[in-house]
């Protein structure tokens, strides 16, 4: 019997529901669940008539993605799936109903086969309820497909910037077309690369979801432990940061004077100290090429349970995206703007 990963849980099959009970208990002023649908988490202050509704969602285990992004100025609702599993259509539909203000509802989530199938089913069901749904997938993971197949890429930590920009557009009461356009643009301008050092374990199995040598790292690993693009010996923070940044810059192709927003994200157990060490290198490199950093976010934004590793996201800003990113938001787990 292999050693099981230690977790502070009860029944692994109940972990998501127990988490949500704890979330609602902790944040009653910000969050509620849709009536009869505990997996549909709704912003108390957010949805309103005439506003495009923003529904996000996906598997659990990435907290604070997705439920932490529910709040005024960001997402109106999140549909929550099992660990690393898309939510089924029903809770997504309940989210859509709860946030529909008559101006259309945007579905935004990471590009995974399971999510696409479930959200598409929910969109069909919403149409039957006369709710117009449009979908914008996030595809920021540079490592997950070649440049000419951007639409095949996974959505990872860049979700935060992409959802935040879209949420701002919705909160500013822009039209459905405008909200959709800005959401797509936010995705097009956002690039993420990750590195994993150690695996995580699902609550039900408590077994590492992949194997990696004691001195190895994997560049480009997905946030569910999907294999990345290259495995190699663990390098220094500067080398790792350079490797990720080089890939991102090659795609983003900024010119001197351009502005970016930066997110240095922990996949779970990598501590702030290491994230800030990475940010130091990022800043030096960006300074060197004359790219200015408008805002920096550092911390646990999109995790894979207790996986060790980190990701770097850059959003290539123009005036519009900068305004959207600066737009205030008030979520249970953080506030900004």
């Amino acid at each position: 019997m292999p050693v099981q990963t230690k977790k502070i849980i009860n029944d692994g099959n109940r972990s998501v529901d127990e988490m949500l009970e704890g979330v609602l208990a902790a944040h009653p002023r910000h969050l509620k669940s849709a009536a009869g649908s505990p997996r549909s988490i709704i912003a108390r202050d957010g949805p309103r008539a005439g506003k495009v509704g923003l529904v996000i969602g996906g598997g659990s285990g990435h907290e604070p993605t997705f439920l932490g992004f529910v709040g005024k100025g960001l997402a109106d609702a999140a549909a929550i799936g099992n660990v690393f599993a898309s939510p089924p259509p029903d809770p997504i539909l309940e989210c859509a109903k709860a946030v529909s203000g008559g101006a259309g509802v945007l579905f935004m989530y990471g590009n995974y086969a399971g999510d696409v199938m479930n959200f598409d089913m929910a969109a069909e069901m919403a149409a039957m309820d006369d709710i117009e749904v449009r979908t914008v997938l996030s595809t920021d993971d540079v490592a997950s497909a070649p440049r000419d197949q951007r639409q095949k890429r996974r959505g990872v930590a860049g979700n935060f910037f992409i959802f935040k920009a879209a949420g701002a557009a919705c909160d500013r009461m822009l039209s459905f077309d405008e909200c959709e356009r800005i959401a797509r643009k936010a995705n097009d301008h956002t690039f993420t690369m990750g590195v994993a050092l150690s695996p995580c374990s699902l609550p039900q199995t408590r077994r590492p979801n992949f194997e990696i040598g004691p001195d190895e790292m994997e560049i480009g690993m997905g946030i569910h432990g999907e294999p990345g693009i290259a495995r190699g010996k663990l390098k220094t923070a500067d080398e790792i940061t350079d490797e990720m940044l080089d890939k991102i810059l090659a795609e983003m192709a900024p010119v001197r004077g351009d502005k970016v927003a930066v997110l240095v994200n922990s996949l779970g157990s990598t501590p702030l100290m290491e994230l800030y060490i990475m940010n130091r290198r990022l800043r030096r490199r960006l300074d060197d090429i004359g790219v200015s950093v408008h805002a920096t976010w550092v911390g646990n934004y999109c995790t894979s349970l207790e996986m060790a590793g980190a990701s770097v996201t850059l959003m290539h800003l123009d005036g519009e995206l900068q305004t959207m990113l600066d737009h205030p938001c008030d979520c249970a787990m953080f506030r900004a703007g």
Partner: protein
Amino acid sequence: MTAIDTAGLKTMFDEIAVAIEADKDRLCQLDGVIGDADHGIAMALGFGAVRDVLAALDLSAIEPTALLNTAAKSFLNAVGASSGPLYATAFMRGAAAVKGKAALADADVVAMLQAMAQGIRDRGKAELGEKTMVDAWQPAAEAAATAHAAGRTLAESLDAAFAAAERGAEATKDMIAAKGRSSRLGERSLGHMDPGAASAVTVIGAMRKGLA
């Protein structure tokens, strides 16, 4: 050769639930190699939910179509993920294929299998050779149909389906994934069996056991 009524379908689902529960760890391990390590959990949650829902039904009061639709709905809501919509669509299409029947003759079972396979293809938009459960389901449904058309018994037809599913799953080892989570791996997916194809073998094997 008696037709299969709702009690028979319930037996089938009970067999699937038992078989998948026993196979859960292997399926998670297969998914760990090229995916996110949860396929066994998803399948076990889904068929466990179906079993629980069917246990509470008055089987004499419903027809196969309603039972299959109920199974589809409860599987979907317990699972989400990729397997949720795929199997839910499979069972809903199966339900449609046997609409109006009080019990299923051999031909109905074969039609149900074909509808299920087609449903999975439609929902996932996957073709043969893309390293998904389609590579087990489609040859299995075809083999059952061929055997049935050749006058074989239901048991023989399901044997043929099972053997075809096994071959199909085995063949996924030599495929590069083009759909689903593992499609970003490129060549790195080579050499590993697709977990959804592997679980399809288990499901079809349990269906054979439960139905014939």
